[in-house]
């Protein structure tokens, strides 16, 4: 079988269920592939792994991929299994925040590493300064958890529909205690969890063929996961080597993830791409309109 390595953007969880399902259910094997899945983490820049030769394909979010490309990393989007964004801003109701008008004077926590960009451009659109000055908001960098929100170090915090939000709920708060602003609803969403490879790989016909088979099998995995939420969560759990994930949380996450992948057959939506690129540019993360940052070649081949 042909070897192929996939670098994830984050730790093993239902966010990447499609790939684990494809592997466990033998979809990759059917395509003659032997796929290795490398989990990510906060200190892994998948682009570096990809360029360093540690992986053939990676999962990344579009803004950070575009930024990397502009910095000279020749990476290209080859498929987009996620149709919608799961990012949102979650606030405690007790702070009296009901709509974006109430933001000024408050501290908004967000992850950095490029994840702050949509929030920055949103604040730009709303006309708020982000340096804590009068009439503006304070942006606070927070870690990948919701502790600062619970401990009231910030009034609002970035969460994913499928993960951090539920941690807030698990901590004992009810949906009624919270106010959420989905990026998707505010018109500032960017594309998440796409598949990327290097330009060099795309010049090699053999590799292109491998990638097409990979994307086909992966999408089959995704669709299977959408249909069989519980089984998919189970598979993810089995693949988690930290032994830290719980069944309850992963099943729920799979349910939410299914909502985001539902609209996609893997083909990148050009309009969504352009919108994401524009927002990324407004946020200042890239300076030029990206060119050649995506291709339909692979999905076209895969979906034949």
């Amino acid at each position, binding site marked *: 079988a042909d070897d192929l390595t996939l670098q994830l953007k984050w730790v093993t969880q239902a966010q990447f269920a499609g790939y684990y399902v494809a592997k466990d259910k033998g979809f990759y094997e059917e395509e003659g592939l032997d796929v290795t899945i490398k989990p990510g983490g906060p200190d892994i*820049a998948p682009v570096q792994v990809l*360029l360093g030769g540690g992986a053939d394909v990676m999962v990344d979010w579009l803004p950070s991929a575009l930024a*990397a490309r502009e*910095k000279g990393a020749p990476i290209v989007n080859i498929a987009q299994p996620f149709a919608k964004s799961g990012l949102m801003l979650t606030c405690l109701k007790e702070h009296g925040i009901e709509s974006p008008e109430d933001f000024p004077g408050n501290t908004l926590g967000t992850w*950095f590493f*490029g994840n702050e960009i949509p929030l920055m451009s949103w604040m730009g659109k709303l006309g708020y300064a982000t340096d804590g000055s009068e009439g503006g908001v304070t942006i606070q*960098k*927070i870690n990948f958890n919701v502790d600062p929100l619970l401990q009231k*170090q910030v009034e609002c915090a970035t969460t994913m529909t499928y993960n951090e939000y539920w941690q807030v709920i698990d901590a004992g708060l009810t949906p009624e205690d919270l106010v959420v602003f989905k990026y998707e609803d505010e018109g500032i969403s960017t594309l998440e969890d796409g598949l990327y490879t290097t330009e060099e790989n795309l010049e090699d016909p053999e590799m292109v063929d491998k990638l097409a088979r990979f994307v086909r099998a992966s999408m089959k995995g995704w669709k299977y996961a959408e249909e069989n939420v519980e089984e998919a969560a189970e598979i993810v759990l089995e693949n988690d080597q930290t032994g830290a994930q719980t069944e309850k949380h992963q099943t729920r996450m799979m349910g939410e993830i299914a909502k985001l992948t539902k609209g996609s057959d893997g083909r990148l939506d050009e309009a969504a791409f352009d919108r994401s690129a524009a927002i990324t540019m407004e946020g200042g993360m890239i300076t030029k309109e990206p060119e050649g940052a995506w291709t339909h070649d692979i999905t076209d081949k895969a979906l034949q």
Partner: protein
Amino acid sequence: MIWVLFAIAAWLLGLSVNIWLARQKPSGWASLASPIVFGLTLIAVWEGVVRGFDINQVLLPAPSVIAARFATSLDILWIDFVQTVIKGALSGYIIGCGAAFVIALAIDRFPFLQRGLLPVGNFVAALPIIGMAPIMVMWFGFGWQSKAAIVVVMVFFPMLVNTVQGLQASDAMQRDLMRTYAAGYWRTLLKLRLPAAMPFVFNGLKIGTTLALIGAIVAEFFGSPVLGMGFRISTSVGQLALDLVWAEIVVAAIAGSAFYGIMALIEGRVTFWHPSQRT
């Protein structure tokens, strides 16, 4: 290919210059020149390798690129330096080394503590920074205080172990002499055991300098205001602005070496009598 040859040539040149330098009469001039030559050699080799093998700058930027970035980002580097080194590392270093020193004295004074506190001290002080950092941020907030707290934990152990060992370093006859003077605990400590402990204490202090810096920087990965060297490094890695990352690392290296150098200088003054300082 030219660049690869350049790298090899630079390496050979640097090596021979340094061997020549080492043969010269020891002087302040040579001892300063030699690390610089070594460093320049390293940098030249790096430049040559990056260019020669055409390494993507997202993986490893060339020194020339880093230098350019350094020059244009002085303002950022300065505020980060103040936040991380002055506020975070230095205050934590002073508190941590001070606390370890005092506790080492207490352990030394009371055998009860020696048996009780030292094992527990080993235990507490080895708490891994990654585990501590989020907790400290939770307790002390995002500001430099939580960084200082981490640094305290980081420098505590080396200082403790070295001081405890150092306090046992005086030899039997020197202690007997103090006994004949009926010198009490404190006088013996002050006049004999502390001076005799200094070579060890300075080992702890020197190891602490670099630990303090690593600690302050890494702690910022786990929560910080939107400035600081650790913050800049982690966000820049995310943005693949590796040139800025390395510029910060250069600042860290300079600050750390200077910090260490100052401690080594003081050490030379204080422990001039120790054989290691006399050769």
